[in-house]
C-alpha cells in the first residue's frame, strides 16, 4: 500500500461515517479535550516566549528557560515539591519507563520490583522487560473493586526489594488506593525501598502531595489534566538516583536528553494551574456528572455492571460499565455513529485475544470484560451532554444485542 492510498482510505472512511449532528467526547482516557487557555499559552510560546532552546546562550534561549522554569514552579506547587525535582518527558508512558528502568539500572544490589496487577502497560511492560534481564517482578492482587491487598504487599517486602510501583488512581476502573497506608506498610518493613506512584490519573483529580506522602517518584501526563498531548513529567525526589534511559545532547535536564517541548510544557502548566485553582469546583462537578451517567445507564439498561467502586473511593471522572451480551468494540463504533466517543476494554480494541488485564484482575469474566465501555467526564461537559449520552445508549445497546446470537436469558 502506498501512502496516498491510505490517505484516500481514511478520507473515505470518515465520509462513510459522516459527521454526527451532535458530538460528546468522553474518551479522555486516551486523549482529548484541552483548556483553551492552555492552547493560548502554547501559541504564545511557539510565537515568542518559547522559540529558543533553553540551554543556549542568547536572549531567545533565556526566554525559553524562563518559561520552562515558571511552568515548573506551577506544577511543583500543585504537587508540593521543588521545581528542580521535576523531569519533563514527552508522555506519561515515558515518565513511567524512566522511573522503573531508570531506578533498576541505577540499583547495585536490590533486584525485586513490586507492582499491583492492575497497573498501566507503561508500568507493566518495562517491569516485564527487566524480569527478562534478571529482575524479580511480583504483582500484588486486588479485590473485586480494585483495592490492592496491603497484607500481600507487606509480606512481599524484603531486603532484595528495590521498588514498589502502584497507581494511586487506576486509569481504567478509577479505584482510589489508600496511598498513605501503602507507603506506611512499605516503610514499616524497610525504609530503603523506593516508592513510585503512577499519578497520571491522580493529578488534580484527588489531593496529591508528594512531600506529605513521602514518596520517591511520581509520573504525570499533561493530556490527562486537559493540557496538550506530548508532555509527561516525573517527580524525582532530591537524592534519588536514576540512570537516564534516553541518551544524547543534554539540555537543561540530566535525566532526559534532547530539546524540551517548551510550548507543550507551558500548556501543561496552564492546565495544571486551572485544575489546581478550581479543584473543588471541577472535581465535584465531574463527580456529579459521573454519578448521573452511572446511575442513569445502570437504571435504564438491563444486564449492566459497574466496574470499580462507587462514591468517594472512585476517581471523580471515571465511568466503566460492562454491557453484557454486547461486544465493546462494536458498541464503541455504534456510539461513534451517534457522535458519542468512548473506548472499550474488549480484546478487539487491544489487538490481542486477551481483553483488559485490569478487569480480569478484578475477577470479571472474559465476556464481561469484552463488553466494557470506559468513559471519563471532564470540566467541559454539561448535564445536557450526559443526557444526550444516556439517550443514545439504550438504542445502541439494543441494536448490538440484536445482532448477537447469544441473547439475555440464553439461546
Amino acid at each position, binding site marked *: *500500500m502506498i*501512502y496516498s492510498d*491510505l490517505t484516500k*482510505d*481514511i478520507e*473515505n*472512511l470518515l*465520509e*462513510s*461515517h459522516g459527521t454526527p449532528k451532535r458530538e460528546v467526547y468522553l474518551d479522555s482516557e486516551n486523549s482529548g479535550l484541552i483548556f483553551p487557555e492552555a492552547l493560548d499559552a502554547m501559541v504564545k510560546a511557539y510565537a515568542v516566549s518559547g522559540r529558543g532552546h533553553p540551554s543556549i546562550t542568547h536572549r531567545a534561549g533565556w526566554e525559553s528557560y524562563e518559561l520552562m522554569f515558571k511552568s515548573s514552579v506551577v506544577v511543583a506547587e500543585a504537587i508540593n515539591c521543588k521545581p528542580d525535582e521535576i523531569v519533563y518527558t514527552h508522555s506519561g508512558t515515558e515518565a513511567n519507563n524512566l522511573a522503573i528502568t531508570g531506578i533498576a539500572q541505577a540499583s547495585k544490589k536490590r533486584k525485586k520490583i513490586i507492582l499491583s496487577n492492575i497497573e498501566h502497560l507503561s508500568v507493566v511492560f518495562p517491569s516485564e522487560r527487566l524480569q527478562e534481564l534478571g529482575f524479580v517482578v511480583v504483582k500484588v*492482587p486486588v479485590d473485586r473493586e480494585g483495592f490492592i*491487598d496491603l*497484607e*500481600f504487599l507487606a509480606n512481599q517486602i524484603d531486603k532484595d526489594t528495590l521498588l514498589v510501583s502502584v497507581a494511586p488512581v487506576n486509569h481504567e476502573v478509577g479505584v482510589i488506593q489508600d496511598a498513605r497506608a501503602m507507603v506506611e506498610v512499605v516503610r514499616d518493613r524497610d525504609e530503603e525501598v523506593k516508592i513510585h506512584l503512577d499519578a497520571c490519573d491522580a493529578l488534580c483529580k484527588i489531593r496529591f502531595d508528594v512531600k506529605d506522602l513521602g514518596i520517591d517518584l511520581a509520573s504525570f501526563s499533561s493530556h490527562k489534566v486537559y493540557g496538550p498531548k506530548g508532555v509527561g513529567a516525573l517527580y524525582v525526589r532530591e537524592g534519588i538516583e536514576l540512570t537516564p534511559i534516553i541518551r544524547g545532547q543534554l539540555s537543561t535536564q540530566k535525566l532526559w536528553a534532547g530539546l524540551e517541548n517548551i510550548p507543550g510544557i507551558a500548556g501543561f502548566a496552564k492546565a495544571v494551574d486551572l485544575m489546581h485553582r478550581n479543584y473543588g469546583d471541577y472535581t465535584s462537578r465531574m463527580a456529579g456528572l459521573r454519578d448521573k451517567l452511572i446511575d442513569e445507564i445502570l437504571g435504564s439498561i438491563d444486564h449492566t455492571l459497574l466496574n470499580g467502586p462507587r462514591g468517594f473511593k472512585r476517581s471523580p471522572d471515571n465511568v466503566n460499565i460492562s454491557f453484557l*451480551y454486547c*461486544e*465493546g*468494540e*462494536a458498541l464503541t*463504533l455504534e456510539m461513534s*455513529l451517534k457522535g458519542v466517543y468512548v473506548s472499550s476494554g*474488549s*480484546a*478487539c480494541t487491544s*489487538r490481542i*485475544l*486477551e*481483553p483488559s488485564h485490569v478487569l*480480569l484482575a478484578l*475477577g470479571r*469474566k*472474559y*465476556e464481561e470484560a*469484552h463488553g466494557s465501555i470506559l468513559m471519563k467526564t471532564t470540566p467541559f461537559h454539561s448535564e445536557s451532554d450526559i443526557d444526550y449520552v444516556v439517550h443514545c445508549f439504550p438504542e445502541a445497546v439494543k441494536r448490538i444485542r*440484536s*445482532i*448477537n*446470537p*447469544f441473547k439475555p436469558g440464553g439461546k
Partner: protein
Amino acid sequence: MSSRIPLAYNPKVLELFKNPKNLGRMEDADVDAVAGSIACGDMIAIYLKIDKTSEKISAASFESYGCAANIAASSILTEMIKGKTLEEAWHVTWKEISDELGGLPSVKFHCGILAVGAMKRAIRSYYKERGKPSWLPEGLTPDEKHAVEEEKLIEILNRRIQRRMEAEQKHKPE
C-alpha cells in the same frame, strides 16, 4: 516498509456494520452452526436453508457477537454463498471474504476465518444424517481447526482465572 498499524476498517466494512445483509436468526433453517465463543469476544452463528434436490443454498443468514469486521465478514459470506451449491460454498475461503470486504488487516483475519469455520460446521452438520459426499474432506480444514483452537484457548484461559481466584481466596485470612 511502514511500521504503522493499518486501519481496521474501510467504508465497505462500515457500511455492512451499519446495514448488515441477511442478519438474524432463521427460524425455518435446515441447518445452523456456531463457531467461537462469547468469552473469546468473537462468535458467529450461520443459518442455511437448502434446496434438497439441487443442494443449493436458497437462503443464508447470520448472527454475530464481535467487532464490526466480524459482523461485516459474516454478512458478506452469507451474500457470497446464496445460490451456490453446498460444494461450491465449501470452497469459499476467508481470503475471498477479505478481498470482497476491500482487504481486512491482519488483526482482523480471524473474523473471516471464523465465518468460514461456522459455515463449514453447518455444511458438515447437514450431511451428518445424509451421508458424507465424496468432496467433503474427512479431517478438519484449517478454518475449522482455527475455530476449535480459539474455543479451546478460551477454556484454558478461563480455567487459569478460576485457579487464580481460588488461590487468592485461600490466601486471604477470614
